[in-house]
């Protein structure tokens, strides 16, 4: 044995450590000189009036920002965050995937504007919360920012893992965006206890999509009347209407793409995925009564705001699950094992009359490499119900007009800044740049970005200020777009909204619901039993996490007004 062997050992160790050190992170391309020196702009073009053009990475598309959009922090030759390096965690969809893609597109330009470096740390969606929580809990300090799902907020808030950004929002140095662009339900999930934590990005909510070409077809309408003795209930107003239409079309072959029978509806019930959102958005019509206050039976859904007793097994919720189960019988049998993408694909291939899901569906319909139904869809806010369970009076009420309830189910993925970050201003500048009107619109126009419309600036006049041409230039069919934007505008500005569960353990509560829902969809549990089990599990979760603490957080999250409320 000699020094040659020892050198070999050391060399091997160096190689192994180098490989290990290089894994997991994506760093940006070098595009600038040293801090404070000359900046070489490849993705930014400054104009004499102080405005600039951003060139997106790889696509080479130009986004123009005015001087007012860009703020005073950035300027020709300025590198306000030179030498800093930030890491932002985001769900792993890749450089041209939803939510993560826009970060890649904007990174080189942001690095040129700031002098800083951005590491994009992609984490599978299912692991994003636990990876970031673990890092924050044990003081790893790996992440400066997180593009979080709205339900993460409760987990981050109590331990102080994220910081409020109100001072930054007011600061004219930073790129300009306005929380007021967001409708109240979306604005509220970016904030907590009156403080702003999140920067606007994506806006999630489920709406109803349908095959407009089929439902307006005279021959099919006549066939419906002949078979059922009734007129086709279209436009649909209630979930019962949806079920009737789905029942009629299920098993028939009404699309020209293949000889196989098609479905009335398609949903995604694969367990531990996003099936529970179907239940939440559908059940709102049967369970949430609107009004000017918040109490057990008004603008409430999840828990009794005085006792934290679960409300998930109330008669309204049970009726909703019965409705969902019946509706599911008119979809493909395999949907109980389908994830989001598989269910969407079924609809995009023209195999289903209805789907109710997120804004991504409307965007994906425009992608002719995946969709055979471009120009053929309609969309609206989710249908309602004439029967609603009043959880104050503990009785059913029958309303004159269907109880239509908007929702913000989903992630509404947006940026927050961690309390361990040493460069919070740099992180905020990135988020704010993405939230400026031109960049935000650019993202929303392009479905692949995963950024869905919700802010006033995304809707076309008269509801908003967006230019229709931007959408059309990005490939949207005008008819589809008209339905789509109206559906989302109606959804986010609805009089009554399904409250969002954002408390500590939100995911655990949802997973308990999800597993029992899955058992119901495969016929192993009756709806009432499934929700009773869910309520029991929720009580166990609440007791383990601390009932008083959970109650307090729940009251804060729904803006519970203790006085007055209706007697039970």
């Amino acid at each position, binding site marked *: *044995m000699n020094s040659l*062997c*020892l050198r070999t*050992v050391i060399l091997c*160790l160096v190689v192994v450590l180098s490989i290990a050190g290089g894994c997991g992170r994506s760093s940006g391309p070098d595009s600038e000189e040293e801090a404070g020196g000359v900046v070489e702009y490849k993705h930014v073009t400054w104009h004499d009036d102080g405005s600039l053009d951003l060139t997106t990475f790889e696509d080479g598309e130009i986004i123009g920002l005015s001087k007012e959009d860009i703020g005073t922090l950035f300027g020709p030759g300025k590198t306000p965050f030179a030498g800093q390096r930030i890491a932002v965690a985001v769900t792993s969809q890749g450089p041209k995937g939803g939510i993560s893609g826009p970060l890649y597109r904007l990174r080189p330009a942001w690095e040129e504007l700031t002098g800083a470096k951005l590491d994009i740390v992609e984490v599978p969606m*299912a*692991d994003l*919360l*636990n990876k970031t*929580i*673990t890092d924050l*809990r044990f003081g790893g300090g790996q992440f400066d920012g997180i593009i979080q799902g709205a339900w993460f907020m409760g*987990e981050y808030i*109590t*331990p*102080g*893992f994220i910081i409020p950004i109100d001072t930054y929002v007011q600061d004219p140095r930073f790129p300009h965006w306005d929380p007021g662009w967001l409708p109240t339900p979306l604005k509220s999930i970016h904030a907590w206890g009156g403080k702003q934590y999140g920067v606007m990005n994506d806006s999630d909510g489920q709406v109803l999509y349908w095959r407009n070409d089929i439902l307006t077809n005279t021959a099919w309408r006549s066939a419906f009347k002949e078979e059922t003795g009734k007129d086709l209930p279209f436009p649909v107003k209630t979930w019962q209407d949806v079920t009737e239409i789905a029942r009629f079309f299920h098993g028939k072959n009404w699309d020209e793409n293949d000889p*196989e029978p098609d479905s009335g509806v398609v949903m995604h*019930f*694969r*367990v*531990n*995925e996003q099936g529970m959102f179907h239940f939440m958005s559908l059940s709102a019509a049967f369970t949430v009564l609107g009004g000017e206050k918040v109490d057990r039976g008004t603008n409430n859904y999840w828990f009794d705001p005085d006792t934290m007793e679960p409300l998930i097994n109330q008669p309204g919720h049970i009726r909703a699950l019965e409705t969902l189960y019946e509706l599911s019988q008119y979809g*493909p*049998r*395999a*949907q*109980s*094992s389908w*994830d989001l993408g598989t269910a969407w694909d*079924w609809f995009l291939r023209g195999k289903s009359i209805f789907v109710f899901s997120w804004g991504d569906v409307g965007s994906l319909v425009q992608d002719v490499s995946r969709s055979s139904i471009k120009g053929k869809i309609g969309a609206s806010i989710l249908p309602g119900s004439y029967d609603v369970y009043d959880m104050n009076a503990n009785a059913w009420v029958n309303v004159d007009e269907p109880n239509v309830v908007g929702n913000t189910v989903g992630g509404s993925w947006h940026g927050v800044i961690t309390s361990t970050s040493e460069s919070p201003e740099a992180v905020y500048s990135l988020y704010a740049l993405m939230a400026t009107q031109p960049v935000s619109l650019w993202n929303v126009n392009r479905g692949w970005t995963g950024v869905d419309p919700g802010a006033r600036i995304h809707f076309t006049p008269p509801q908003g200020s967006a230019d229709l041409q931007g959408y059309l230039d990005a490939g949207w069919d005008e008819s589809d777009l008209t339905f789509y934007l109206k559906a989302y505008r109606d959804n986010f500005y609805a009089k009554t909204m399904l409250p969002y569960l954002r408390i500590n*353990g939100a*995911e*655990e509560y949802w*997973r308990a619901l999800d*597993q029992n829902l*899955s*058992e119901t*969809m*495969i016929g*192993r549990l009756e709806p009432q039993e499934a929700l009773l089990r869910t309520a029991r599990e929720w009580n166990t979760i609440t007791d*383990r*996490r*601390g009932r008083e603490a959970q109650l307090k957080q729940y009251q804060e999250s729904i803006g519970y007004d203790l006085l007055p409320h209706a007697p039970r």
Partner: protein
Amino acid sequence: MHRDSRVKWAFLLPAALWVLCFTIFPLVYGLRLSFFRVKIGEPDEFVGFENFVQFFQDERGLQSAAVTLIFVLSGVTVQMALGMCLALLFNRDMPLRGLLRTVLTMPLFATPIAVGFLFVTIFYEEGGLINGLLRWDVPWLSHPHWALVSVILVDIWQWTPFCFLIFLAALQGVSEDYYEAGRLETKSGWMLFRHVTFPLLQPTIVLVLLLRITEAFKVFDIPYTLTSGGPGSATQVLSMYAYRVGMRFFHFGYASSISLILFLLVLVTVSFMFKQIRQTYS
């Protein structure tokens, strides 16, 4: 001599550090966590055996344990039997033996995660490879019983080659003299297998059984990718349940106790088998 000793330790040190960091430390820390209630942002609270007691009152936990046992017993049994049959078949001259043997062992080199995703497409019910080509209407992933069958089938597909390879190697080490002596007594292939091959292969069979049982108890990748534990909780194995409890719900103490229970389950099973082996050969 002294210098040789230093070099020896230099080579051993990385492996020792690896075992310390990635085996001993997690085991000890996990053991410690299992006796605590761990809440994010608050100090850990010692709760004694409460987490372990909770498992035996947890319907989902017990169900996961039952699913795991069914998976292990049925999957490993079929893998062993099929592996043995293939080994016996290949332990003779046949055309294209080398090529076929190579093809048969290929599943072993695929990563379980990729295999799981691959079989999602194969089992796709609305026109996937099986239902589409064979015109079957089997609810591979949407029916609780069929979903468990699917998970077991994939595991069999991936791990039968392991059994096959080891049995084949053992068979090729058996001297032909034993068979010649046996043929003096009987011409029956089954009798020869029962009285010559099987006794001689027993040590190998036990070894493969132990290895497969230990691995099968820890299965995670295939049910996670193929069915996500569903539909319902039909394919949620214990390791997956522990992962969800710990990494999704941040109930680290309880998750550690589930992991330890799984560890003890495997340990008891393996110890029992070793005891039986010692008794057989003593």
